[in-house]
């Protein structure tokens, strides 16, 4: 049982790391602000969620797990709120998304 949890935790951690990396590459390579938002969401949800889940499995059940859960809880609310607020501010600030007929910035 323990080995299974151990292996599972590493799968989670590695999966999380891959998502984080993918998100990071996305934020660098995507052409404009609105598309980059999507990349960040990957980091915020899948990346962070998997890493935290992996850590929870590592730690076993204790106060540490509670704190990790709390972090996860905070993140899952703050991430989308921040991104939403950003997108809204950008729209209000008249930032135009890049569409096909425009040149890339």
């Amino acid at each position, binding site marked *: 049982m323990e080995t299974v949890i151990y292996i599972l935790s590493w799968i989670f951690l590695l999966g999380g*790391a891959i998502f984080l990396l993918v*998100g990071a590459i996305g934020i660098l390579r995507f052409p404009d602000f609105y598309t980059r938002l999507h990349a960040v969401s990957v980091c915020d949800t899948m990346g962070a969620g998997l*890493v935290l889940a992996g850590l929870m499995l590592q730690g076993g059940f204790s106060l540490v797990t509670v704190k990790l859960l709390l*972090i996860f809880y*905070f993140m899952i609310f703050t*991430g989308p709120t921040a991104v939403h607020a950003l997108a809204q501010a950008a729209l209000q600030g008249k930032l135009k998304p890049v569409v096909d007929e425009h040149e890339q910035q």
Partner: protein
Amino acid sequence: MFIAISAVILVAIAIGLLRAFLGPTLYDRVLAANMSGTLTVLMVAVLGFMTGRPEFLDIALVYVLISFVSTIAVLRVCGTGCGASRDPEADSGEG
């Protein structure tokens, strides 16, 4: 193994930083800063496990909070007012 995870996170932070330098708009920078915040939280959490003292997760909790509040603060305090949609590096206004 933890070291590999933290190395990946560091690389991601570096990429985020790059976006923060490149801009081009303020929103991109805020986005990058926000992402760097998230990544830092994860790194601190992983570091806690790496050094064998995971009880310091309080720090990560504070980071989540701070990075959220400062993102909101940028948008609410300066969001639409400070000519954010223009490219700040390109024009050379008065200062």
